[in-house]
């Protein structure tokens, strides 16, 4: 699964993107966040304030219950501040 991180989330995880093998029982964004938080302190810290994190699957904003699969590009980022 291709994962992307932006803004302070990328800073805490210290990566802008990576490809990871995700266990097959991880089916939703929410489960993915829990899984990542369990394998490494950096993810745990980045995803701590989960209310402040938004996610996109294949460049489309979704909520925590969105189903994901191996071929997806999943992105994590804080609330947007463009313009």
């Amino acid at each position, binding site marked *: 699964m291709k994962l*992307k991180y932006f803004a302070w989330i990328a800073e805490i995880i210290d990566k802008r993107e990576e490809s990871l093998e995700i266990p097959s029982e991880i089916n939703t964004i929410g489960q993915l966040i829990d899984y990542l938080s369990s394998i490494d302190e950096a993810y745990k810290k980045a995803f701590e304030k989960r209310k402040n994190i938004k996610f*996109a699957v294949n460049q*489309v904003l979704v909520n925590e219950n969105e189903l994901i699969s191996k071929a997806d590009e999943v992105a994590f*980022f804080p609330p*947007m501040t*463009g313009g």
Partner: protein
Amino acid sequence: MDINIKKDDFEITEEIEIFNQNSSDHGAVSIFIGKVRPENGLKSMEIDCYPEMAQKEIKNIAEIACSKWTLNNIRIVHRYGSLKPNENIVLVITGSSHRSDSMSANEFIMDFLKSSAPFWKKEIYSDKEIWVEQKESDLRKLYQWESF
């Protein structure tokens, strides 16, 4: 409709020219230019971006604008990367036969870009770096359009 997500600066005059070439028959043109505000001590503004998503999302919002108002053309440019105070960040040009359409669409698109397009601003001062937080007031502006 033309959407540009890029690092390089843009020339407003050039952008208006391209806009006019692609659509000469409108009576009203609204332009908004957002720049890095020269806050006290600000050295630069770093804008992080998810370009593929930005392109999709902005195209989507431009299409919504076209369905809400009668528009002849839209041109949107949004930069990312490291920008100095007073440098251009964003440009929105909307053309219509009627001023209220071009003005409302322009405001709508800017409200969207502020809180829903995948860009993130970080202010760089000599002694600190601050990720800009999303403003409640910006979100409220965006929500107002839903009941429109």
